[in-house]
């Protein structure tokens, strides 16, 4: 359950960037290769925001797909599975996208 501390980090970061501001919504980007479960973050969010200026805020999560580059056959391919195998069978791949864990934006009142 690293999602609890991740969610706490999200809320801390928002409160640090926008102190004394009532927040109505938070938009996150959690890539499919990030190792973070969006549903767990949603579950933790309401617990973590209680009693803060984010209380009652809506949470939107974008879940971009993964993309990787195969070093052996020099092609790019889509991958949403954590076992990063190129269609050619090689495991020698570099992840290009899908590991993001970012706060995109917030809605302020």
């Amino acid at each position, binding site marked *: 359950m690293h999602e609890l501390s*991740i969610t706490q980090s999200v809320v801390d*970061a928002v409160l640090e960037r926008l102190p004394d501001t009532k927040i*109505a919504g938070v938009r996150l980007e959690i890539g499919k290769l990030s190792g973070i479960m969006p549903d767990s973050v949603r579950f933790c969010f309401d617990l973590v925001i209680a009693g803060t200026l984010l209380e009652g805020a809506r949470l939107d999560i974008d879940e971009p797909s993964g993309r990787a580059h195969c070093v052996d056959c020099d092609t790019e391919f889509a991958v949403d599975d954590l*076992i990063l195998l190129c269609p050619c069978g090689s*495991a020698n791949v570099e992840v290009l996208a899908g590991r993001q864990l970012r706060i995109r934006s917030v809605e302020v009142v």
Partner: protein
Amino acid sequence: MCATCGCGETHEHRTVVLEQDVLAKNDHLAHHNRHWLADRRILAVNLMSSPGAGKTTLLERTIRELAGELPVSVIEGDQETQFDADRIRATGCPAVQINTGAGCHLDADMVARGLRELDPPLDSIVVIENVGNLVCPALFDLGEAAKLVITSVTEGADKPLKYPHMFRAADLVLLNKTDLLPYVEFDVDRFVADARKLNPDIAVLPLSATRGEGVADWLDWLRKRLAVHT
């Protein structure tokens, strides 16, 4: 009524773009730890495994084998108790216990505080024994020079594919309890092949922390890393 938040008032919401990495704060603190360690020519390794794979037993053995040659000190991470720090201190090695409470992993801030308390000597090795867990610790940079994963043969050879993040993040895999191989079904070749599906260049060192088989290779790995690192 406001359509966005349903608060009963008529008002405009404003979008503020943040584009901030959630782990940025942890990564920043880890960066400081890395500098702090480099300034003191200290090799720090982050030891991770499921509970019971033999992290503390391997550490006890490592400390005994390196006694008089290389100073080792330890940061112990567990949810509760001082058990592991007590075991390490019984070998004569300095140890700091961090209890994470509800937390399932160590983070860079906990390690920063642990390092200040431990105050390890120059030109030494610090082993950070993470909370027994094959999931969460993989995500958090502590400022270590290398991430090590221990798997024991009693856990089964399917661990790399079940916990891919951990094995992708690792710099070295230690396969422990090899003295039990005659008594359990564990396909070493499959284990190594699966680990390399996730991490093509990963080295796997088989060893038995209790019987000593393979421990010399592990100690050589540590000596070489310390030489390269400092």
